[in-house]
């Protein structure tokens, strides 16, 4: 039998690749199926989903012509259709049911932020402990331009807003514009923060970004009476809400059937009732795809190669003519841009923004995603980000309930959230610093025996350090 797209002479090679992967994947799949059947019973979805994953893993797709597109496109397809088959999926032992669509929105947004941070930490090797500042900036931009907040103090401005009474007080700009504005605005903030601080190296940069990350929420909390002028910028500890939902407006909705606005949307599509959450999810997926695309293209661009050069050896990069400041500032701006978009979209999804959302924990939480998945590798970061965001939203609660039910204990697992993230950071750094799915380049770096003593990875200082 001939496989389409595979030259006849490479058939033997193909089989040689396929066989061990099939055996390995097959054993894992059978073990998984047995495990799930023992703990939560048999469902067809279990067999089908495992078979799909096995096919994706075992077949050496890269050998077939156009085969390298198979895995990403199937993954995208599975992600898009998730709301359709989520209810039919089996229960994972210990973790319980698969994440709800609502959780999936949050996961997607956090993955976006993690990819943004990955540009700064993973590509350019600059440890940023204040990434939450960019998230906050994006969220507040959305709050300023798409809420009734400035109605009393400034006036009413309406630009293409939907789902809002045309007479409503405050600024109401279309969320699509706000997303772009938030990204650009946050990028500018990133440049402003970066310009004075990026001259610092390593841990000093980390502590300065931490400082900015702590100042930002404090401004948000005290910004209801900024510098005693009585101007209410952030509405203080109450936060700003409601923030307008995204939407396409009556005219476009009439032509295309796209939702007029997300909150009140309700329709049936391909035999499933589609509510606001599903639309939010698909939009988030679109934004995520955009982020992933930009991130991968940036990595392979001239700028991205300059980032990696700086990460590996700053002095050598400078000697090769890479302008350090400009390159680092661009890394900051790019990371901040995606953080801002994600923050603005998240604020619109939650319908409000509150200063208590922007603690240092969130910075570390996002950093944890990047480290768990594998610094520098987009696919690893997607995996790490999705998993940790899921744990935070649903997983820990589910695990706790499961443990308490079966062991008769009364452990409040979400209480240990901090500690679990701490353990992940420590264990990953000690035993697998390259992450779950390391990028090929990073892996090579960590495997080079003789290079272990050099400080090539993040920071360069004169001479070997013990």
């Amino acid at each position, binding site marked *: 039998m001939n496989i389409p797209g595979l030259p006849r002479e490479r058939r033997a090679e193909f089989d040689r690749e396929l066989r061990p992967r099939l055996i390995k994947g097959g054993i894992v799949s059978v073990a998984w199926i047995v495990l799930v059947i023992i703990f939560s019973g048999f469902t067809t979805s279990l067999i089908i989903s495992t078979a799909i994953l096995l096919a994706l893993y075992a077949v050496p797709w890269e050998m077939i012509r156009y085969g390298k597109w198979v895995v990403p496109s199937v993954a995208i397809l599975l992600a898009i259709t998730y709301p359709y088959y989520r209810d039919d999926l089996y229960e994972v032992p210990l973790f319980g049911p698969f994440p709800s669509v609502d959780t999936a929105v949050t996961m997607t947004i956090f993955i976006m932020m993690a990819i943004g941070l990955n540009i700064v930490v993973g590509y350019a090797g600059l440890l940023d402990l204040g990434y939450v500042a960019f998230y906050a900036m994006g969220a507040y931009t959305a709050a300023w331009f798409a809420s009734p907040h400035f109605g009393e103090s400034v006036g009413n401005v309406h630009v293409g807003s939907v789902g809002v009474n045309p007479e409503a007080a405050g600024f109401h700009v279309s969320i699509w514009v706000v997303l772009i504005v938030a990204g650009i605005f946050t990028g500018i903030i990133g440049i402003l923060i970066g310009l004075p601080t990026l001259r610092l*190296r*390593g841990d000093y940069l980390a502590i300065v970004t931490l400082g900015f990350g*702590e*100042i930002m929420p404090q401004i948000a909390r*005290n910004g209801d009476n900024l510098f005693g002028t009585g101007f209410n910028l952030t509405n203080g500890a109450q936060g700003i809400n409601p923030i307008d939902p995204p939407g396409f407006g009556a005219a476009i909705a009439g032509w295309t059937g796209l939702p007029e606005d997300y909150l009140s949307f309700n329709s049936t599509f391909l035999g499933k009732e589609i509510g606001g959450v599903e639309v939010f999810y698909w939009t988030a997926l679109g934004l995520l795809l955009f982020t992933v695309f930009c991130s991968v293209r940036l990595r392979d661009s001239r700028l991205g190669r300059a980032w990696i050069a700086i990460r590996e050896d700053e002095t050598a990069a400078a000697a090769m003519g890479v302008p350090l400041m400009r390159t680092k500032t661009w890394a900051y701006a790019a990371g901040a841009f995606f953080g801002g978009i994600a923050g603005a979209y998240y604020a619109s999804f939650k319908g409000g923004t509150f200063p208590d959302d922007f603690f*240092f924990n969130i910075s570390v939480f996002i950093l944890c995603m990047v480290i768990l998945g594998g610094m520098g590798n987009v696919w690893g970061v997607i995996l790490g980000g999705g998993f940790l965001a899921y744990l935070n939203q649903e997983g820990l609660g589910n695990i706790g309930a499961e443990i308490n039910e079966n062991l008769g204990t009364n452990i409040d697992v979400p209480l240990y959230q901090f500690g679990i*993230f*701490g353990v992940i950071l420590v264990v990953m750094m*000690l035993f697998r610093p390259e992450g779950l799915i390391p990028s090929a380049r990073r892996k090579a770096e960590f495997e080079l025996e003789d290079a272990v003593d050099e400080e090539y990875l993040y920071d360069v200082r004169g001479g*070997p350090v013990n």
Partner: protein
Amino acid sequence: MATQARRLPLPTLAGRLPQYIAPALAMLLVGMVIIWLGVNFIKTPSEFYRLFLIGLTNGAIYGLVALGYSLVYGILELINFAHGDVFMLGGMLVATMVSSFGLAGDSGLVLWSMILLMLVIVMAFCAVLNTTIELVAYRRLRHAPRLAPLITAIGMSFILQNVGLVWKGARPTSVDSILPRGEVFTIGGVTYTWDKLIVLLFTVPVLLMLMWLVQKTRQGKAMRATAQDRDASAMMGINVNRTISFTFLIAGALAGAAGLLYALYITNIRYDEGFRLGLIAFTAAVVGGIGNLPGAVLGGLLIAMIESFNNGLSWATPGSDWTQSIIFALLIIILVFRPEGLLGEQVPEGG
């Protein structure tokens, strides 16, 4: 040949400013602070004394914690994020001991010997804890890229915070007030109370002993040598690992002493207090010049003064809402413009 314009290197922020501008700005800032303090002093002298005394006391505690950061940074060039949380756990241990020993009504010799006993216990506890952290989380990463131990430090900090949270809950744990709070002397209508004096009386000998240890003893010499050049000191027969462990031991003991004083003086402690105070203390260490021991204490006093005056003064004061922002802004300004700190000679990261 036509003369070609010489191409200048890419301008950086510092490079673009004329050389005298940064000092001039600093002078301006200091001048404004002095005017602010002066006006406030003339308007409300008694308030000024009161806040000064509070600042002095808090400064002693900050200084103790800052010393731990400074010692560890001096020897490993690592920001030990977990240090503040070691301090917090020490404070929680004291809270537990005070209630379980039933010290609330005691006074006189019994009280003092018990406080001394608690000091020994909490110092030992924190010292062992800090050394264990070094052993578990940092030692294996001695040869790893520099940001790896920084990330494990954050991880350890989170773990310890979680321990505190599970141990004492999310609300502040109150500690019975056992320090005498009688009057020592009165200045400008403000009474200086015993508890404040006791904090200083504890701190000063600890500092002097630490100075003596680092400057005069063999072990201190080994510490300084290791800080300067680890390879060379290993060749000179210094046991580098033991010296580093010893440094963490000392730093932990200092954090324990600070935890005792904080718990007894402030009389409550919460699981995230350590992280907050740790950041302040780290700022103090940086302001004074990290790796520089007198600098750490000076930085601690300075930060505590800023905090206390900003929280309490009335004329043209940003107020307590902004204290943390001011402290971090100071940290950023110092790191950007004078990374070696106010007193620092050892420059780990020149600008």
